[in-house]
């Protein structure tokens, strides 16, 4: 393969790989954080309800 063609093809492949990685990072990251924070707040709420029941 000539250098020119190899350069063009490798640029295209790199662009696709980068787009896939960024899509994964920017989609998956916030979703994971959201899941973790909702789990944390559920645990927090559960603890408070249990405390209230114990008080009753």
């Amino acid at each position, binding site marked *: *393969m000539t*250098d*020119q*063609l*190899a*350069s063009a*093809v*490798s*640029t295209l*492949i*790199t662009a696709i*790989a*980068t787009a896939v*990685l*960024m899509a994964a*990072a*920017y989609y*998956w*990251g916030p979703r*994971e*954080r959201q899941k*973790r924070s909702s789990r944390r707040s559920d645990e927090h709420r559960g603890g408070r309800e249990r405390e209230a029941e114990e008080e009753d």
Partner: protein
Amino acid sequence: MMSQGDLFNVRFFGRPFKPVAFGLCLAMIVLVVVNLENSGRLGSSWTGDAVAILAGSSFIAMMAGWWTRSQLLAEVGLLLAGVTYVLRGTFLALTIFPDQSMWFSFSTAMIAWGAFLLERLDPHRLDSEK
């Protein structure tokens, strides 16, 4: 600022220390010099020039991110380091396959993008940024 890429309780000039990013900074300088001299595996192809520009940008982003304590710049630097090595590895795969430089490029790309994902997907990242 503290993330999964930082060494716990280690400070360098009062800033968090990211060992992978520092190692990659050194690799980026090497890539810039070698590709500007056209003395590396990529020769005088324009991919070599692109690699030099990407490596230089990555180095600047990582150093600026470390100095200004910017998580975003550090992530951009790691992402660009991965892009640089994927471009280099793919070009080598298409021209002089099989070559050990190609395998080293792909493995370093995995290190860089792995470090990027560790930073980006850190569950406490937003807590420290806001």
